[in-house]
């Protein structure tokens, strides 16, 4: 099996304007590989929500995509405040987003639930005060 395709994106905190760049690039890449639209849409949604999470909560961070013949793995790595209660965070409508994010139409508490819904594997490793790593996998077969 060939080495996976590796993509990496830096996402800056509070940068609402360029959020979507990673998502577009992931989608574009999957399109060129001939991955079906239904799958690339899920990957695009996960990446976009992950970007927004980094912008709003994570204080910026990194998005990593690894694509091989079996799966698309998407990881979000930040050194932000961490998530005190993961069970709560993945509930629809739960949010800790500030006023600014909500004014811009974000922070509706749909981010993590949306990611979870679109992923085949969904894992969160988080430590309060240290940061959060989110790993999701979409199976190709």
């Amino acid at each position, binding site marked *: 099996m*060939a080495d996976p395709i590796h993509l990496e994106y830096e996402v800056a905190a509070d940068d609402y304007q360029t959020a979507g760049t990673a998502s577009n690039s992931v989608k574009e890449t999957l399109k060129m590989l001939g991955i079906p639209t239904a799958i690339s*849409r899920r990957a695009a949604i996960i990446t976009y929500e992950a970007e927004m999470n980094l912008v709003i909560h994570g204080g910026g961070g990194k998005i990593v995509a690894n694509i091989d013949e079996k799966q698309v793995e998407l990881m979000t790595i930040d050194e932000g405040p961490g998530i005190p209660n993961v069970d709560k965070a993945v509930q629809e409508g739960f949010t800790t987003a500030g006023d600014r994010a909500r004014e811009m139409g974000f922070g509706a508490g749909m981010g993590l639930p949306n990611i979870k819904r679109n992923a085949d594997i969904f894992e969160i490793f988080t430590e309060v005060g240290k940061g959060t790593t989110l790993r999701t996998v979409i199976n*190709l077969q």
Partner: protein
Amino acid sequence: MAHSIRISYSACHGCVNCIKSCPTEAIRVIAGSITIIRDLCVDCGECLRACDRKALGLDDDDWDLIRAHGEVDAITDPTFFAQFSSYWHPERAREALLGNGINMLFDDVEDAFDLSAYATARMIEGMSKDQLPLISIYCPAVVRLIQLEFPELLSRLILIENPLEIAAEMWRKRTKSFAPLTLISPCPAKITMVRDPVGNQPSSIQHVVSMKKVVHTLMASGVKVSSDSPGLDLEGRRFAEWARRGGESKHILKFSKRDLRIIAVSGLRNTMDLLEQLELGRLRGVDFVECRTCDIGCFGGIAVAESRFLSHMKHRNIETDWALMPERAEQLDAMLANEKLWKMNEPIPSKQRLPLSSDLSEAMSRLKQMKAVFAELPHIDCGACGRPSCKAMAEDVAREQGEITDCIFKLREDISSLASQIISLADLQPNALKRIQPGKNIKVNAQRG
């Protein structure tokens, strides 16, 4: 796939001005001349605006030839009425056009546009929040752009035939005529709409000519239309509003039973931005989206005769009656029940560009090659390779449609390394001559001395 952009190879100087204007990166300049990747072209006409040498033109039908056969049955995009020195009220234009051998469709057009707005309003009312917003299909370039670049939005396109097509079909049913019908089009996109319809249905229209050509012929023949407006049918004006951005939206809103949240944009950049945001799901709570790839809407089409600013200004002064009278609503309900007349039978298919390879592992190795090539390129998107960007260049190389030395910077690097190779080779000497080295000897002697 049929298209309506014509290339004049003798006029093209290979200047690469057009390649960056294309929203889908469909243009290459290969061997000094333009090539359009037909599968990627949406017929928006932006490249025609970018070309100073008229190397790109419209591939429409021959108006003089069509007229040579006698009276012409014609249908026009509503931009037509604002193309003359004063606004041609559709009701006044009818007689004048007949006098010039043009039987222009009006009543069916009025019905079709009313029906289209009415059907859209009913569809929006019948949809749940997550099925909205719906997207207008009036601009054929937008439909093609979505097929190509935003396939996830295909389900949002309203499954209604273009009202110009509906009108043509209504006219045919009503008159039982088999005579050819000619569309007067403000843009290449609507020319292609007739030649290569999106659905499986063949078009009810046979010929398409550019509006510019028709307007100029009419002007040359000195046709006059009275510009006074009293006593005109203001209801029959509603279709004319579709010529500008927001006209269709207003029509739908006026026919809707509830207040609608609508976004209407014009211009290519706005259209692309809006579709991108829509695809990311950022436009929640919107009911209807109207996009026109031309600035101001169809008034800004590349095939119109009048300045878009002037035609828009003239148009703004006309009055329209938006009230939907009960008897009119009844008529529209009857038309709505006849779904064959207006409904598009099947969903609009995706037309995405082919992947790098149909085999996933092969596609992956080509993608890696593409990334490697891209890393080597200067990333200034100069266009000298004939491609719109370094990224497009890298992709072309990975698709085996180009060489890395097409890049002038890579070529220079190659020449420079070749040159230094030549210099080092020039220093080498055949064995037989190695013994006699006068230069060196002198140097050595001088040092000794």
